[in-house]
């Protein structure tokens, strides 16, 4: 701190804690102590309060001890002369500020003031708030800002945060010097795939207003989440941080110090204060410093450069006009660079030579038909992509060829056929890596702003927006993206990349046939690739940056629980980075083929989990099941009464027969803890013959989120065939009919589910 900051932060904290108390007293009078209190679709109650104090607040009246605790953390402001120390006191007051802010936002939910009503605004992408009457809009996305980030989004971002695709998050508080600067700052953050939270205002004008005035889309899909136009809503950023520690770090409510240190060491976040900093902003910043999150301001404020509570400087002032730069936009760019430097955020940016902004933040962007220039694939045309390994001398690195006409003759919103053939060569390249690399095309192309990519192989579907076309984006740029990204991300195995884009009908058909041949070959290879056919599995400790004791063991028939890494991916990853998170595990002596124990896997489990876990059964949920970080796609959980298991997908917010929602279950399944009967898995493991094969396999599934049934209908049908029970999927209950164990048992009886007749699961 500095005495200036301490004085203001302590003043701000005292004021906010008092405000929370008054609001609490009013709410108690008007609504009563039993009024339910929660952030919708988030686990861990009011997360900052739960994390810091261990209090699980579910009713208004339960805020009383929180208020009292916040008050106890307050201190008087430092004296003008002969002051006593203030750093510890200010950090405490900062924490009091956060607790008070969370109380206030929770109480605002009761009064329907959260998420903050914002008429005319529409969120880009999903949201937790399914109640359309809040904010007066027509759908859940309309008429209000985001509020807290829901659990589904938290978990789906989890893997990106751990694998470095998303290097960290920025909490922007206030308003930029001008709208143009606001846009530039956000674009710079997006370009680096930094998740950006927006809140606060300066004299009533928020960066949220600024961005909307400039037509910037805000929401999950663009990595820019508008929390609220006041400083208090910044609490959602800290709540997100606490939930990250609880979700991925295996920490429990009340382990305040560990949660804060987890964030200091693992979550690369910072606060960017734009415009004048008032007392409350100083107070909230003091709270954020407890998390190890530094504060960077674009105005003159006292600097706190010594380190310790944060890893690098605590408070940095970069008065905007004093930043070196030809114009304000260049200054904005430098400001973002400074933020990254102060937090030590590790950013990998591939320089992709295309005329549109490029970064993972644009991956979720949707190109709607109305804004579309042209599409390839989809209903009316065919697009395919094919990556093959060829000899070194057959590739001219960087050569990009478009064979056939471009889309200039296609009418607006029209369509045409397209084939993308990527030839790669490299001394470390293996034929097995072809599909691994080919699948990246989806992510690579999606990174371009205004380009949308869906699907893969010969069902690829690419849309190009008007805006992108106007900026000069053409077919050749698809090749440029691929060339740049393969070198940047897979340079260790790929030495040369050449891309050919086909639109000319004959050649396209020829190559489509060749591609299909290759797909068939790969399918067969994949079908042959069973656990018993290999002598090594792979470890995946990618998530240990977040879940320190969790280790995935990835086998050909069991992919990583995040769904993002299968055995071949891991193998390729090992070749790219031999000391990285994916290491081969020599299986060694087979101990138990049914449950899936090898000497090698057990030994590795012990080492990889730092002694936390002794052994792991690859094929059982009942005995030494594999642990999970927190990024799992589904949770499998034993329903003892039904003699089977249920499978909940993270997209499913409904109540399960286990009496818990996905969010609550996730707390049990995650954090690297081994809990028999509970397991987080990748959804494609469900269709593996090795899916809990030691416990009876797929026939044990008695309940399954309808999302899975629908999105994997074909694959699941095939599993039912394999299990010799073609009608099996229809006999599995889901959340549309069954919410309780009693309902479930009735359903199973009625539909004659095979699990009832199987031997007892334990």
């Amino acid at each position, binding site marked *: 701190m500095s*005495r200036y900051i301490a004085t203001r932060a302590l003043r701000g904290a005292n004021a906010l804690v008092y405000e929370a108390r008054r609001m609490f007293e009013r709410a108690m009078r008007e609504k009563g102590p039993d009024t339910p209190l929660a952030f919708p679709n988030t686990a861990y109650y009011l997360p900052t309060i739960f994390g810091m104090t261990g209090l699980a607040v579910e009713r208004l009246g339960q805020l009383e001890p929180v208020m009292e605790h916040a008050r106890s953390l307050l201190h008087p402001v430092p004296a003008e*002369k*002969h002051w006593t120390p203030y750093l510890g006191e200010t950090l405490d007051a900062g924490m009091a500020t956060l607790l008070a802010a969370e109380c206030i936002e929770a109480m605002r939910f009761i009064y329907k003031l959260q998420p903050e009503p914002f008429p005319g605004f529409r969120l880009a992408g999903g949201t937790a708030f399914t109640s359309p009457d809040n904010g007066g809009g027509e759908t859940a996305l309309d008429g209000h800002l985001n509020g807290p980030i829901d659990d589904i989004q938290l978990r789906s971002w989890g893997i990106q945060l751990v694998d470095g695709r998303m290097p960290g998050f920025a909490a922007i508080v206030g308003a930029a010097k001008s709208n143009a600067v606001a846009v530039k700052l956000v674009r710079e953050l997006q370009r680096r795939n930094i998740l950006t939270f927006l809140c606060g205002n300066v004299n009533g004008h928020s960066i949220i207003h600024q961005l909307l005035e400039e037509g910037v889309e805000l929401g999950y899909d663009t990595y820019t989440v508008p929390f609220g136009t006041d400083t208090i809503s910044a609490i959602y950023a800290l709540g997100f941080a606490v939930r990250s520690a609880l979700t991925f770090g295996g920490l429990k409510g009340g382990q305040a110090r560990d949660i804060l240190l987890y964030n200091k060491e693992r979550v690369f976040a910072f606060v960017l204060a734009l*415009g004048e900093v008032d007392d409350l902003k100083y107070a909230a910043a003091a709270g954020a410093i407890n998390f190890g999150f530094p504060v960077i301001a674009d105005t003159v404020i006292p600097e706190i*450069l010594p380190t310790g509570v944060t890893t690098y400087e605590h408070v940095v002032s970069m008065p905007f006009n004093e930043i070196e730069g030809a114009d304000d936009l260049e200054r904005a760019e430098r400001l973002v660079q400074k933020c990254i430097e102060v937090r030590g955020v590790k950013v990998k940016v591939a320089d992709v030579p295309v005329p549109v902004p490029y970064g993972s933040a644009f991956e979720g962007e949707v190109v709607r038909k109305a804004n579309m220039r042209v599409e390839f694939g989809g209903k009316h045309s065919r697009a395919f992509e094919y990556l093959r390994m060829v000899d070194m001398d057959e590739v001219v690195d960087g050569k990009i060829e478009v064979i056939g006409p471009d889309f200039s003759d296609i009418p607006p919103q029209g369509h045409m056929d397209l084939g993308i053939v990527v030839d790669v060569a490299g001394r470390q390249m293996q034929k097995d890596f072809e599909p691994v690399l080919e699948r990246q095309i989806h992510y690579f192309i999606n990174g371009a702003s205004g380009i949308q990519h869906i699907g893969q192989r010969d069902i690829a579907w690419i849309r190009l927006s008007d805006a992108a076309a106007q900026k000069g984006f053409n077919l050749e740029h698809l090749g440029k993206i691929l060339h740049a990204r393969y070198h940047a991300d897979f340079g260790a195995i790929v030495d040369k990349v050449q891309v050919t884009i086909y639109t000319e009908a004959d050649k396209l058909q020829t190559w489509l046939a060749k591609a299909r041949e290759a797909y068939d070959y790969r399918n067969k290879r994949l079908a042959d690739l069973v656990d018993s056919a290999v002598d090594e599995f792979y470890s995946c400790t990618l998530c240990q940056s977040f879940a320190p004791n969790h280790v995935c063991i990835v086998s050909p028939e069991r992919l990583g629980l995040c769904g993002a890494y299968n055995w071949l991916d891991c193998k390729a990853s090992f070749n790219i980075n031999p000391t990285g998170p994916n290491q081969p595990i020599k299986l060694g002596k087979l101990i138990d083929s049914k449950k899936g124990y090898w000497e090698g896997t057990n030994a590795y489990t012990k080492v990889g989990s730092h002694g936390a876990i002794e052994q792991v059964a690859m094929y059982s949920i009942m005995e030494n099941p594999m642990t999970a970080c927190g990024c799992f796609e589904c949770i499998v959980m034993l329903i003892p009464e039904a003699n089977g298991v249920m499978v909940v997908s993270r997209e499913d917010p409904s109540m399960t027969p286990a009496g818990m929602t996905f969010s609550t279950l996730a707390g049990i399944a995650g954090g690297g803890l081994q809990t028999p009967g509970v397991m987080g898995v990748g959804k494609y493991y469900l269709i593996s013959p090795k899916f809990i094969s030691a416990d009876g396999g797929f026939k044990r599934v008695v309940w399954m989120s309808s999302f899975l049934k629908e999105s994997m209908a074909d694959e699941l049908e095939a599993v039912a065939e394999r299990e010799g029970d073609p009608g099996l999927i229809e006999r599995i209950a889901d959340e549309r009919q069954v919410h309780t164990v009693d309902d479930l048992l009735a359903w199973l009886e009625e539909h004659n589910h095979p699990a009832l007749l199987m031997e007892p699961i334990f």
Partner: protein
Amino acid sequence: MPKIRPTPEEFSADPAAQEMLIRADELGISTAFTRAANMTPCNIGSAGLCCKICGMGPCRLTKDGQTGVCGATMDTIQARNLIRAISAGAAAHSDHGRDMAFILKAVANHEAEGYSLRDIAKLRLVAQEYDIPVEGRSPDEIANDLADLYIAQFGQQTGVIAPLKRAPEKRKALWKEQGVLPRGIDREVVEALHRTHIGDDQDPEHILNHAVRTALGDGWGGSLIATDVSDILFGTPAPLLGQANLGVLKENMVNVVVHGHEPTLSEMIVAASYDPEIIAYAQAAGAEGVNLSGICCTANEILMRQGIPAAGNFLHQELAILTGAVEAMVVDVQCIMQALVGLAQNFHTKIITTSPKVKIKGATHIQFDEHHALTIAKEILKVAIDNFKNRQCTQIPQVKEDLVPGFSHEYLNYMLGGSYRASFRPLNDAIMSGRIRGVAAVVGCNNPRSKQDYLHTYITQELLKQDVLVVETGCGAIASAKLGLLLGEAGLDKVGPGLREICQTIGIPPVLHMGSCVDNSRILTVLTQMVEEGGLGDDIDQIPAVGLAPEWMSEKALSIATYCVASGVYVIFGGSSPVSGMPDRVADSDLIAKYISAGWEELFGGKLEFIPDIDEMVRQTLAHIDRKRAELGLPAYDPSHFGRSGDDRMLQLENLSLAEKRQLIYGTVKN
């Protein structure tokens, strides 16, 4: 040649002291200052070469190759004299610790009037250190167990004293290897006396090895116990505002000065002085109330915890009485000059001895008994109040300074991260980055053989300019306090740029007052935590830190020096060396001096050196710090990198009109 008497300015750097010395002169009263000027130290004794441990002597060794009657060599005699001094110092500290442990026991059993367990959190933490169960137990039960454990440390005969477990792992292993793990606190003192009896241990290195063991029983035993229990009974210190120097005495109030070392009685006198009955009694006597102040380490104990002002340090004990405004000086143990009684006879001041261990001929003795502590405290105050009417002409120097004391180990932890993130990380970071070049503990006594406070404050100020963070205890701390170095403001203009940033960040003075001399144990636990926090090596001897006692005089100082050296610290003493030998007359008579320096450094990584030259002390301190930095691979100290943090620019901006401020908030446009 007639002796030239030093002027008051040469006697003391403190203007309050100078004023009183002039008054003493005017009144024709002698003080320690004048007596020191008149008393030439015995040159053989001060060289450590006088042996009087048996009736065959005393043997005075002055020539090459000379031995005592029994054949004891110079080195043996020096080593024996040194270990006896160290043992006496260790005994003093540890006996203080023992009494504290007894009081803890009495409080736990509700047998001590007026006392309570004020810091339950620390009680539980300390108890947990020794695996004493705390969950579901009352504070009294826990305190009882802890008191039993602590009392047992003194009489323990075998094994290792329990509090030693709080030292760094590597250090403990080293002590074991060197055979210096103390078995019992008392046992080592007794053995030191036995070994130095005529005809026992006559291998100097072997003798000094035991000196280390005895001193460790003090620092990591008796002293640590004293600090722990004082915190539990009276509260762990946290910063507050206090005052120091003779100006804290009040003309219109009954002035009671507590002097000595223990907080037990003085805390009760503090409580009693707030008692309405006592205030009324004082008012009835014509005073506005009772004004309490302290001298020496009793002052530090109640200053650290209650903010009771300090009238001064060791050499102020006579000067306070010279004001004529002190109704009673209440003393307990250690560092109490016998001269007080004779001096007080010139005024109305009553010297009241209270410890069963300490009586002074001519003083009033009101024996302290913890079972009736509050009653006795009131009785003492009434004696003082009754004496108010006898006050004659007074002269209170109008010199005093504010200070912020209260830096316990626990508060250091808190101040560096608050309740949630308390740790030493920011401190270690600051040292590693070079904002803080290193840490110096400037501690110890006053000694009339040098200008009072001058060495303390000169060294402290020089080190601050070099970005060395200074921690202080005892009389040294009061010396700095009198000069305003214990205020946050000093962290702005009396320090180098890096240290300024740290002071401003935390809000601390650049000199941290950590308590009385027995509280040097706090420095040991702080150093241990610095090691454990990481980044500064894996043992205390690797930390860029130095201990200094520029104005030392007591045997306790020698014990403190020895346990610090054994813990890995480079300790520099000013003034004369008790093992100086007579290099001008006797070749190689500095063998012991070399052994406790280079010899101990080889064994323990710390060393004890006596450096009379003040600038050389500073040079050696900085050289040692820089060497330790280099050995840790830390960047060399370079102040030009630092100093950008701070409020200055913002405060300038705040002074502008709103419109101007609005304009300048984004900074000034370049070009």
